């Protein structure tokens, strides 16, 4: 059973790579041990000798955008301290991809096609069954975060964020309703949850950020990338302050990344996908442990 899943996972990885090559993305490899992780409010890096294990390759790949890389991806290990559950491991496999001059919606459509290609390779069709639920991964829908909160949690996403139960409602009310029969892109997060995405020019109350779901499982997070150096530094400063107040590990500042921002990162969109979770969906497995050799 497990060996069978590992073979399916291999077919999936091959399909993902082939899809990227066919769309003129090259495969990048960046350092797993890094001097300075991006300061995230709720992600803690694993310490390593002379640095940290990366929580994602995000900052390294954004430097590659500044270097003139147009389209590229990376598949590799990432580490997040203390995360363990059915859908979490401290060590997991991450896929990140970036495309200069693509907007975040174009990247979403590309991602839907990427997942469909992976499904065809593993299941022979975009139609698959996960935990008894029939899915058609050739179907993708978009729903804004605010629409989803109003519909499933009976509150606006902005109010939920302001009153402090955004995450609880996400997990208990919203996520279970997403990707019920295919792929759902949950788009346009409240600006307060922009993370490293830029605010929408059309509606500055929201950020150009989406997360993608299949069968209630979050598979990836994407940004219309924030490339404004001053704004980026301001957000990192706020994150460092939050982390210090929470007693989280102090990180050095990512000087190389700041230098790249100042040189100029082109407008771009980027996405990070949990490879193990995509394998769970395509292998019809309900725990990451079923699709990884641990």
């Amino acid at each position, binding site marked *: 059973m497990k060996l069978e899943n590992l073979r399916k996972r291999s077919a999936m990885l091959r399909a993902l790579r082939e899809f990227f090559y066919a769309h003129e993305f090259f495969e990048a490899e960046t350092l797993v041990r890094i001097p300075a992780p991006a300061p*995230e*409010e*709720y992600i803690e890096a694993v310490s390593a000798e002379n640095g940290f294990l990366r929580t994602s390759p995000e900052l390294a790949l954004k430097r590659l955008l500044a270097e003139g890389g147009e389209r590229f991806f990376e598949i590799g290990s990432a580490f997040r301290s*203390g*995360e*363990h*559950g*059915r*859908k*979490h491991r401290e060590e997991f496999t991450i896929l990140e991809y970036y495309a200069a001059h693509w907007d975040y919606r174009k990247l979403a459509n590309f991602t839907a096609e990427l997942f469909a290609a992976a499904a065809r390779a593993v299941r022979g069709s975009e139609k698959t069954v996960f935990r008894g639920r029939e899915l058609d991964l050739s179907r993708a829908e978009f729903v804004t975060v605010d629409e989803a909160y109003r519909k499933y949690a009976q509150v606006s996403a902005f109010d939920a964020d302001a009153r402090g139960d*955004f*995450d*609880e409602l*996400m*997990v*208990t009310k919203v*996520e279970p309703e997403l990707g019920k029969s295919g792929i759902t892109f949950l788009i346009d997060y409240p600006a307060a*949850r922009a*993370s490293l995405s830029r605010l929408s020019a059309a509606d500055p109350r929201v950020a150009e950020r989406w*997360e993608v779901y299949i069968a209630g499982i*979050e598979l990836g*997070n994407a940004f219309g990338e924030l490339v404004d150096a001053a704004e980026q530094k301001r957000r990192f400063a706020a994150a460092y302050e939050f982390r210090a107040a929470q007693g989280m590990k102090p990180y050095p500042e990512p000087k190389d990344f700041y230098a790249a921002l100042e040189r100029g990162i082109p407008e771009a969109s980027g996405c990070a996908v949990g490879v193990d979770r995509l394998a769970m969906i395509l292998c019809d497995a309900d725990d990451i442990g079923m699709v990884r050799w641990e």
Partner: protein
Amino acid sequence: MYSASDLKKGLKIEIDGAPWIITEFEFCKPGKGTALYRCRMKNMITGIGMEKTYRPTDKIDTPDIEEREMYYSYKDGNHYVFSDPNTYEEMQVSAETLGDQAYFLLEESLCNFVLYKGEPIEITLPTFIEKEIVETEPGVRGDTATNVTKPAKLDNGFEIQVPLFINQGDIVKIDTRTGKYAERVNKA
């Protein structure tokens, strides 16, 4: 006190002065958000279920729960008296707490007690006990099918369903978890 990161399936916790046992547990972390510990739990006294989600900074009370073995000694009016096998300390348990399990108590049966603040809230009997059938319709010889049943009375008046081949005077094994017939031990 427990931290949220201690939570797991099977852990017993206290909420508003009542003991709860976690029956389902999931670590969650919505994109870029805080870790959340989702629990489904059951009230250990009333059996009522509920869902509760904890944050990493939450602290959870530990209940005053003790597990010990006691053996059944004798019935005293509306109470059943159990004794500690080491100290011989006695404990009275009401018929209400035991429910139908009272019919399956045998003298000297070693039972597992879960005590909350010193009071028994859950008593687990030995899984199988043997009892004599004192009253049932005559058996049908040769009919060994167990899916057709008839009522039969135990010496304490409790009625169970048994296969047709069981006779008055037979000794049968009963599963105390379900109160159901398991197999015949001795023919009368």
